[in-house]
């Protein structure tokens, strides 16, 4: 909804529906807008691991991936299944955020659900530049897997844009 300059009302004028819809309905909708989440285009390079670990997510593995942003506040949600982990196994998998190129701070949250080579694990979310980092809560390395790693999360971040 487009913003219209707030009206200066004058005594005796007839306040009709058109005025109220412009001055109240449309201006209120402008100030508290609906959002349409943006679906993130698939790119294999969005998923990775630190220190030589690999995280292979194929396009068919992505169940959902969307975001919306107000200024520096970003809400991001993702669900991937049947993904693969390999390379030099480490403790942090990463997801590149769709917007935000600088430092950001993620709200301290846990992943809703994570299967580490089919085993249910508690996973913590952190941040590193424009990446979300996923780490096992027990501090151990992730397990190598072939089409057996699942992650589902929704997180609020503050991003530098």
């Amino acid at each position, binding site marked *: 909804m487009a913003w219209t300059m707030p009206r200066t009302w004058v005594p005796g004028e007839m306040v009709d*529906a058109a005025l109220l819809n412009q001055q109240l*309905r449309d201006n209120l909708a402008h100030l508290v807008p609906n*959002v349409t*989440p943006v679906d993130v285009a698939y790119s294999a390079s969005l998923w990775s691991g630190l220190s030589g670990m690999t995280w292979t997510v194929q396009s068919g593995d992505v169940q959902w991936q*969307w975001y919306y942003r107000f200024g520096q506040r970003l809400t991001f949600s993702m*669900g991937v299944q049947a993904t693969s982990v390999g390379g030099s196994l480490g403790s942090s998998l990463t997801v590149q955020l769709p917007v935000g190129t600088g430092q950001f701070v993620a709200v301290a949250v846990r992943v809703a*659900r994570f299967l580490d080579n089919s085993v*249910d694990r508690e996973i913590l979310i952190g941040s590193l530049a424009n990446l979300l980092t996923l780490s096992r809560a027990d501090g151990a390395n992730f397990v190598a897997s072939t089409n057996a790693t699942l992650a*589902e999360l*929704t997180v609020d971040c503050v991003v530098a844009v």
Partner: protein
Amino acid sequence: MSWTTPRTWVDGEFVDASLMNAHVREQLEHMVASPLPTNVAYSGGAFTNGTPGGTWTVDSGDLTTFWYYRNANRWRASIRVSTSSIGGTASSQLRISMASFLGGATIYRNSSAPMRRLFDNGTLRPGMVFCRAGTNYIECYRRDIGLWTASTNNTTFTFTVQFVTNVNF
């Protein structure tokens, strides 16, 4: 001070105090203040088992928290169910209907959240909730997607989840 979809006014209607308070005062207060969550009234029918033949009984005293907060089509809901009962056909999914406050809106995109605390028939377990696009309810799971354990007044969990609906002004 909950946010309400901005009203479409029509010519010739009588604009009374109730309308002005709801659509001017409270909307302005919502934007400049920290809005208060809206408590959801208890309804036993809102709590169901996702499997035919399964039951989930949440008595009024079991629902100690159920509120939502809305900003346009962005929502957060927080729920604590304590000492509820599960029976009948074993199931992995419990459902909480949000029809009473979503109106005709449905969830626009999938989202999920971890449970803060879950006791499955008294056993502490990880849990999660899932908001599925196109529905108007929250799905509750053990995080391992295992079957809920039959219980009598012994299943308790707490969570807060955020989601987006398809509401358009």
